[in-house]
C-alpha cells in the first residue's frame, strides 16, 4: 500500500512540475534581460516597469476585469431566475431550457461575433454599443458552463421539498429560493464562475472582432506587447496569470470562510 502511495505521489509531482514548467519559464523570462544560454542573465524588472507605466495597460486591466465579471454576474442571475421559474412553475420546460443553454457550445467565437455585428452594429440602440455587444456575447459564451454548474448543484438538493417546507413556514417562493436554495448551491455557482473567468480571460477572437479599438483588454495588450518585445509580453502574461490567481483565491477564501464559520458554530 505504501509503495502504491509513493508511486501515486511521484506521478502527481511529475504532472505538477510538467504543468508548472511553462509558467515558471515565463516568469523567469520576464525577469531577465537575456535568456539565450542555459541560464538567464541580467535580472531586471524593466519589463514590468514598462507595462505598469503604460496608461493603456491599466485601462486594459480594468476593462478586462469589467467585461469578465459583468457577464458572469448577469448570467448567474438570469440562470438562477430561469431555473427557479422552471423548477417551481414549469418543470416540463426544463429540457427545452437545457437545449437552449447548450446551443452556445456549438457556436464558434468568429461566427458569434460576426453574427452579432451583422445584427446590431448598424443600429443606434444601447445594444449597438460595442461594450454592450461584447458583454452580451460573453453572456452567451459562458451560458452553458454557468447553467450546467448551477443545475447540477440544484439536483444535489431536494429543491422542491425545501421550497415547500419554507413556504409552509410562511416564506414566499422567491424569497425562499434566495434564502434557502442559493446558499446551498454556492459551490456550484463558484466553480462555474471560476470556469467562466478562465474562459473570458482567454478570449481574443470575440473581443478583437466585436470591440475593435473601442474596448482594449489584456489579450489585445498582450498581442501589442508581443510585437514590441517578448520579455514585455511575458510580463503581461504573468500579470494576467496573477489577476486570475487573485480572483480565484478571493472567491475560494470567501467560500472557505463560510465553511469555517459553520465549523466554529458547531463547536
Amino acid at each position, binding site marked *: 500500500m505504501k509503495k502504491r502511495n509513493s508511486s501515486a505521489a511521484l506521478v502527481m509531482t511529475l504532472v505538477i512540475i510538467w504543468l508548472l514548467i511553462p509558467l515558471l519559464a515565463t516568469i523567469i523570462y520576464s525577469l531577465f534581460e537575456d535568456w539565450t544560454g542555459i541560464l538567464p542573465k541580467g535580472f531586471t524588472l524593466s519589463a514590468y516597469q514598462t507595462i505598469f507605466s503604460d496608461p493603456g495597460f491599466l485601462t486594459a486591466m480594468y476593462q478586462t476585469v469589467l467585461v469578465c465579471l459583468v457577464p458572469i454576474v448577469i448570467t448567474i442571475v438570469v440562470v438562477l431566475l430561469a431555473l427557479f421559474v422552471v423548477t417551481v412553475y414549469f418543470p416540463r420546460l426544463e429540457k427545452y431550457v437545457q437545449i437552449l443553454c447548450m446551443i452556445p457550445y456549438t457556436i464558434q467565437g468568429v461566427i458569434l461575433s460576426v453574427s452579432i455585428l451583422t445584427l446590431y452594429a448598424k443600429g443606434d440602440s444601447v445594444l449597438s454599443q460595442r461594450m454592450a455587444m461584447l458583454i452580451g456575447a460573453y453572456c452567451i459564451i459562458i451560458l452553458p458552463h454557468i447553467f450546467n454548474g448551477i443545475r447540477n448543484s440544484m439536483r444535489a438538493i431536494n429543491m422542491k*421539498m425545501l421550497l415547500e417546507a419554507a413556504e*409552509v*413556514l*410562511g416564506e414566499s417562493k422567491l424569497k425562499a429560493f434566495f434564502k434557502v436554495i442559493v446558499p446551498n448551491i454556492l459551490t456550484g455557482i463558484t466553480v462555474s464562475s471560476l470556469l467562466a473567468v478562465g474562459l473570458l480571460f482567454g478570449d481574443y477572437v470575440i473581443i478583437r472582432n466585436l470591440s475593435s479599438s473601442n474596448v482594449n483588454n489584456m489579450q489585445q495588450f498582450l498581442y501589442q506587447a508581443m510585437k514590441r518585445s517578448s520579455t514585455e509580453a511575458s510580463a503581461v502574461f504573468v500579470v494576467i496569470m496573477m489577476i486570475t490567481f487573485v480572483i480565484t483565491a478571493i472567491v475560494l477564501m470567501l467560500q472557505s470562510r463560510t465553511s469555517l464559520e459553520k465549523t466554529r458554530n*458547531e463547536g
Partner: protein
Amino acid sequence: MSYIHFEQINKKFGSNHVLKDIDLEVEKGQLVTLLGPSGCGKSTLLRCLAGLEQVTSGRVYVDGEDITDVIPRRRGIGMVFQQYSLFPNMNVTDNVAYGLKLKKLPRAQIADKVEHMLEIVGLSEKKGQYPAQLSGGQQQRVALARAMVTEPKVLLLDEPLSAIDALLRKNLQIEIRRIQQQLGITTVFVTHDQDEAMVMSDVIHLFHDGRIEQSGTPEQIYTHPATKFAATFIGNYNLPDAADFNRVFGADIAGESVAIRPEIVMLSKQPLGRTETRLTAKGKIVQHISHGSLIRFGVDFDGLLLNADVVYESGMDFAEGETVYAAVKKELVIGL
C-alpha cells in the same frame, strides 16, 4: 362543524383521479391518521390541506374558515415531510427559528420559544449543529420542532418516520404522540404502516384507491374491519371463503368471506367442547413460525388453512404434523 372539514374533495392529475369525493372531519386536539398503501391518495389529501396541491373540486375548512383558495404560507399550518426538509445551510436553532423570524417576533421571544421547543424534543445540546451532523431521528425531531414552534392551527406529518430504523421509529412514535398530547395540537398523520397508525392515532381513516374505505378508532378498525381490503391491510386476518369455513366449523356465517384474527383461534392438544358460542374443528399443524413473544401456527383443517397465534409459553408448543383441536368464539368471526 369539526375543526378540520374536507367537503367532497376531488383531485385529478390529468386523467388520474387520485381523490374521489372525500368527506372527512377531524376534531380539535385529535391525532388522526390517514392510512393506506402507496398511491391511495392519502399524501395528496394532506398536501391539499397544506395548500401545496389545489383541489380539483370540493372545499377545505379549518376552524370554520374556508381555506381552499388560501396560499400555503397564509394557512397557519405546520408540516413535517418524509425527508425532513431541514435547511442544510442553517443550524438547528436557525432551522427552528425560521418560521418565527418570518412572523417578525422580537429576538428574545424567538430565542425563548426555540429553546423551549428544543427542550421538548430533547435536542437542546444540538442547537449549534447542522442537519448533516445529526442522525435521522434527530433530524426528524428538529423538523417536528420547526413545524410546532410557530404554534400552527394544524400539524401535518407526511410519513415522517418511514426513513428511520425500526427501534428508533418505535421510540419516536411514542415521543410524537406525547408531544402532540402535551401541546394539544390537532394533527393529521399519514402513514402506510398499520402498526404505527394503531400506536399513535385517536382516529384512523383507511384509504383505498382514492376513497375512504373505513374510519374509526384503532380498536374499531382492528376488531371490526368493514371490508376485505380493511381486514387484509389492517391485520394478519385469516380470510377464508365463508362456505369453506362453515363446512369445516359447522357454522352459518353469512357473506362471501370470513375474517378471523389469528389470536382468536385457540389451539389445544385435547378436544375442545363445542357450545352455542364456540365453534370447533380438528386440524393438523403444517407450519410453525416464531415471532418472538408469539408463535404463529399454520393449521390445515381439511383443506382450510388458518393461522393461529399462540403466546409463547412452555408446554404450548405443537410440532409440525401434529393433530390439534381448534376453537373460535363465534361472535368474533366476521362475515364480509
